[in-house]
């Protein structure tokens, strides 16, 4: 046992973990940076082959899982460093960096949507509407009142939260198909209104929204490091990382807290939850607003990222993309949202080669995936309380050194 532990956590273990991470990282970067469609086909084939191989060899996949579990800290540090390095590889391809930032915005929004859809089981097909509320709030405040960007971000998030109140009564009184219809109707209402109002710029939308700048430092300037000049998007990239990390960690904390458990009970059986004294209505409203705050935050960031917003950016199709991210990634799963956003935002950009057929492929893939793998790429796992207890015990035992001195457990 000790020998196995040694083999797992020793230098070779860490090296293997980092090696796997670097290979995945390199393949993902190559997917974006290598021009042409063949790389996509090659990598998809490779991925399928690896997945089939791993499924045939459950011991190997179990070993890899153990390895990552044993070297969690090294694995995380490696992953963070690799992610931080992304702009360095994108110095001459700002377009892809922009796409990655966009994927980050979808992650942020979908963390919020996942709280509603995945954790609590509330259907929300109006996420693009709340995204729009965030974006227009930020844009209008920056243009008309000259608020600084960091303040408009907060305002956008809050405003999206406040707008949730419009749907409070329907959220409590309807569910399933009916709630889906309410949110779809709301989505269409918002798009139509944005199109018709004078003060939102109508179909032309808002132009020249100031980009981020903090204390006189404009985010549009490249970062000159002497040996390399990073494109201006690198600034946005790091800010996006900050936002994704904050919202993602918050979501993860919610999932692991008693609030997360409460939400699960509401999702699984509302009536049983109510019988056991869970404030179903209270939590539904809290999560609906909080989720929309996250979506609004992402929308506000979007306004300051592109500087130009108009109603076609916030149509029902965008809501659909967000819902597919949550479902394809795996419901109630923060990692699933990250994976789903990367796949659904970055791959279609690669498919620009087949521009004409892009949405057709998107629709077909959606159908095939959902019929064959309805639980998503990273299926939701029941909470493992035994593991939680084990971890808590390990924590209690290890630092003390000897159990006797502590008077036993």
């Amino acid at each position: 046992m000790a020998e196995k532990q040694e083999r797992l956590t020793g230098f070779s273990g860490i090296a293997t973990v980092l090696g796997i991470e670097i290979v995945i990282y390199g393949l993902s970067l190559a997917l974006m940076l290598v021009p042409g469609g063949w790389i996509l086909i090659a990598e998809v084939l490779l991925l399928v082959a690896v997945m089939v191989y791993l499924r045939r060899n459950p011991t190997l996949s179990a070993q890899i899982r153990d390895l990552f579990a044993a070297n969690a800290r090294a694995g995380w540090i490696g992953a963070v460093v690799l992610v931080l390095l992304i702009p360095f590889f994108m110095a001459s391809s700002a377009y892809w960096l922009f796409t990655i930032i966009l994927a980050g915005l979808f992650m942020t929004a979908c963390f919020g949507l996942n709280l509603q859809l995945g954790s609590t089981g509330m259907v929300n097909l109006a996420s693009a509407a709340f995204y729009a509320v965030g974006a227009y709030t930020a844009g209008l405040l920056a243009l008309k009142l000259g608020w600084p960007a960091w303040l408009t971000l907060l305002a956008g998030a809050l405003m999206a939260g406040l707008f949730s109140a419009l749907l409070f009564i329907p959220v409590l009184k309807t569910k399933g198909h009916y709630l889906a219809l309410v949110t779809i109707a709301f989505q269409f209402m918002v798009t139509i209104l944005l199109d018709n109002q004078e003060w939102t710029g109508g179909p032309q939308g808002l132009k020249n929204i100031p980009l981020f700048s903090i204390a006189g430092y404009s985010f549009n300037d490249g970062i000159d490091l002497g040996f390399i000049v990073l494109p201006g998007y690198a600034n946005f990239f790091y800010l996006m990382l900050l936002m994704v990390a904050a919202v993602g960690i918050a979501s993860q904390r919610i999932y692991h807290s008693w609030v997360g458990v409460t939400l699960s009970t509401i999702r699984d059986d509302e009536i049983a939850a109510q019988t056991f004294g869970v404030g179903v209505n209270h939590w539904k409203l809290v999560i609906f607003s909080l989720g929309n705050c996250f979506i609004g935050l992402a929308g506000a960031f979007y306004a300051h990222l592109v500087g130009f917003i108009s109603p076609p950016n916030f149509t029902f199709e965008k809501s659909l993309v967000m819902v597919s991210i949550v479902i394809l990634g795996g419901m109630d799963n923060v990692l699933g949202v990250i994976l789903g956003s990367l796949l659904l935002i970055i791959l279609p950009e690669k498919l620009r080669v087949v521009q004409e057929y892009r949405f057709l492929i998107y629709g077909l893939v959606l159908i095939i995936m959902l019929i064959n793998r309805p639980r998503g790429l990273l299926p939701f796992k029941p909470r493992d309380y035994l593991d939680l207890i084990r971890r808590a015990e390990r924590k209690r035992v290890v630092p003390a050194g000897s159990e006797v001195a502590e008077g036993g457990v």
Partner: protein
Amino acid sequence: MTSLDILLQQSINGLMLGIMYSLVAVGFTLYFGVLDVINFAHGDFFMLGSFIALALYAVAVVAGFAGNVFLVVAYLFIGSMLLTGVVGVVTERFCIRPVSKSPMLISLLVTLGLGIAIREAVRILYPRGSDPKGFPTLLPQGSFTVGNIVIRYENLIIFGVGVVVIVVVNFLINRTKMGSAIRAVAQDGEAAMMMGVDLDRTIDLTFLIGSAVAAVAGVLNGFYYGQTMFNIGAMMGVIGFSAAVIGGLGNIYGAIVGGILFGLLETFAAAVLPYGAENKRVFAFLIVILFLVFRPTGILGEKIFERV
């Protein structure tokens, strides 16, 4: 014009729109009955119907029988109904049936994805499919007046066709053996099967009828507006679903009433409210949301109790 005239004129316009919405709503209600699925791609069958009619018309022009108006209109309606119906059955078999037992979110997304696929397929396959397509003017133009109210012949025919289709569907569902099979499956699929109802065939037939009726609505819509476009289905799907829900989901009369109500709401909002023309749908959807909150089972729906 007196205000009574305006009221009547708008009612007629509203009925026109409403009858088309009813035809789409009927499909939603039928599918929900037999498969418990909301088919969000249904609006795209409406669009598909209009495009198939356009393609058939092109064939008729080439074949040289486009001159006989009566024949060609009948041919457009019947051809479009048949072909759209077949597409409806095929997609039901391969896309909708496999997810009919899945959680509601999955079936919702699959049908939405199906809608995207149909829309894009039409856009790509139809020559210059991204542009709005003009519809041939086949119905008699001109109008007559009753008092101060103007009634166009074309509108009268559209309304008449709509009513005839609704009467026929009603007859099929309520008076034939096939219809009683559909109603039996809608009540309890397993029990119906045990009584000797062929489940697969019944579901196929339901989708054939639903898609064909949507195709009629699509062709009527094409004649009414004089054009069609590949992306009109999404909005029509939401309107059709709304109409079915306002009337009471699962109830065929409800769908008809709901569709007409939605049409009337829209036209009156456009005529009466300030900025109504642009915001008529905002108003109509607002009413839909209120309906869902205060009377979720619709006008003609039964009261549902939640069993624990």
